[in-house]
């Protein structure tokens, strides 16, 4: 079954990401029905679905880490910020918080410029301030809690002054308190920095509370649904997976 809801225009800002009948997958083989959506500044897109449903594959295609299998894809964001799954960063890596955040300002061949980091010190400081981790700059990565690590990775992504921030399960190892704090921070950042945000998550309550838009993917049902949160959670694909009661509860609490 394929369900496709056109994402309504949230505002008049030009799209940072446009997907028209985009097929994502590996080795030329699509794993989901085509996706059509547009991500604009100040929108927070929740990407959700069962485990192994293709959420990370969609994000990797948006980030340019995977080539599209078919369809149209355009990313006009001048800069992307990426917060990877926690398993992608070695937990034992020797690095201070400031080292991790400084890495975020590197672009293309900038590593050949010895003064690049110094030139971008204001962006680094802003990122540290926006994520409330200035007090931690000299602390080793290995000493941080999961919540603090996520803030550091968000600061790293923000240091590059991205127009689009993409986060892959940033709260997977957190309790509900810490998860809400991270999403509240994302909500604040998208408003203050005019950011487009795409975030993978599992906690439907938190996603529905903070997201403006949603992309529901389900490989097993061969279903994709994209649009305003209230439309997606009332869509047949979501209802079939989670039930009408959940859909009605979430539809009443979305951020749009």
């Amino acid at each position, binding site marked *: 079954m394929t369900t496709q809801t056109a994402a309504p225009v949230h505002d008049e800002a030009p799209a940072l990401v446009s997907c028209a009948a985009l097929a994502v997958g590996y080795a030329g083989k699509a794993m989901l029905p085509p996706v059509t959506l547009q991500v604009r500044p100040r929108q927070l897109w929740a990407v959700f679905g069962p485990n192994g449903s293709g959420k990370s594959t969609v994000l990797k295609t948006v*980030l*340019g*880490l995977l080539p599209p299998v078919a369809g149209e894809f355009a990313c006009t964001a001048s800069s*992307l910020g*990426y917060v*990877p799954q926690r398993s*992608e*960063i*070695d937990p034992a*890596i*020797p*690095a*201070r918080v400031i*080292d991790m955040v400084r*890495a*975020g300002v*590197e*672009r*293309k*061949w900038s*590593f*050949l410029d010895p003064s690049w980091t110094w030139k971008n010190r204001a962006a680094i400081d802003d990122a540290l301030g926006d994520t*409330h*981790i200035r*007090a*931690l700059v000299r*602390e*080793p990565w*290995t*000493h*941080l*809690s*999961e*919540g*603090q690590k*996520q*803030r550091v990775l968000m600061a*790293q992504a923000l240091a*590059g002054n991205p127009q689009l921030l993409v986060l892959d399960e940033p709260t997977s190892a957190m*309790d509900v*308190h*810490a998860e*809400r*704090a*991270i999403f*509240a921070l994302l909500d604040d950042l998208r408003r203050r920095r005019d950011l487009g945000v795409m975030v993978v998550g599992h906690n439907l309550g938190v996603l529905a509370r903070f997201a403006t838009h949603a992309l529901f993917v389900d490989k097993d049902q061969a279903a994709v649904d994209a649009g305003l949160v209230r439309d997606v959670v009332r869509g047949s694909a979501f209802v079939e997976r989670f039930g009408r009661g959940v859909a009605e509860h979430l539809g009443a609490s979305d951020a749009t």
Partner: protein
Amino acid sequence: MPPEAPPTLRDFFAAWELFADPALAGALAGALLGALGVYVVVRRMVFLSAALAQAAGLGVAGAWFAQIHVGVPAGLATPTVGAGLASALAATLMASGEAGLKGRRDGWLGGVYLVGAAGTLAIGTRIVQEVQDIETILFGSAVAVSPDDLRALAWTVGLLGALHLVGLRGFVQVAVDENGARVRGLPVRLLGLLLMGSLALAVSFGTRILGALPVFAFTVLPPLAALRLAPNVGHAVLWATLIGALAGFAGYVAAFLWKLPVGAAQTLTATVLLAMAWVAGKGLQWQHNRSAHRGGHIHGPGCGHVAIRHGDHVDYLDDGQLQHQGGAGHEVHHLHGHVAAAGYDHGHDHDHEGCPTAPQGHVHGPGCGHPRIAHGDHHDYLVGGRLHHQHGDHCDDHGPVDVVE
């Protein structure tokens, strides 16, 4: 006849002209392999250098075999050329086949290692006049290095050192977070190829001159020591350069003093340096924890502890204690009656009414599920922003605290 006196450092430096080239070669190879080895260790591919070293060994043995039995001119089939070709071939195979290995890279590296080692030993039985050199390749028993080899090694160290100094931040980024580097547009593929090429060159030279054992040791042990001491990967590259150079030089001196095989002495010296770094790292960690934090935890937004506004600052609730993250570490703050003055209602039995998380019949105590918090001379439990005090069979409301979201 009196027993021969053991050699001393004075004897070593008295014969410096004789030992200078191999000792300096050890230091140069140790420095280069140590620096490159940091990326090898961080990217979790330590077996790569072992496999490349064995492949290089097979290349050296193959060159001799070609000279002796096939009649290839000695100027064409030199051991250096053989080592370089074999390690470059192995590195290219591993790099180009990366996508097709389907997560079995360690197994394939093991295969290259085994073919290299077995091939070298097998060819060694056919070139008995070079049997001493086969041992040199495998175990690093070189006691002499020709001036030409030393000069070539110095050029290699200089060129690769310059390349990696200029591209240090790029190489570090790719090693630490390859996908992040791709998203930021760094030339990840080129940097990966340059690293692989540098390793193949350094390992083939090192194996030809020092032998496979110390080459493998230099790419693993100094980097491990450096990663233990350095605050970040970039600094670790510089630390590993120094530790590798020291292991190469001091290992050669140790081999002279205690009449040990050079490769074994260099490997053991690197091991001793690693042990020293481990102890020093523990000391640094202890000092850091002692001076700044308890148990290495830093309180702050998102640290996982409940944050409570306390006067003009924010404290964190840790194991029943109200802690403030100060410049000198965790300071224990105390919550007294006046802090929770607004709404303080000591003695009021509220029976958990209106509390969504503590239902009727709930008894507060250790493990009850609510955060415990020291309050004056007793402990309360934090429920919905209010202090609950279990008093016998009922619960008193000890007023509100300002929980920071």
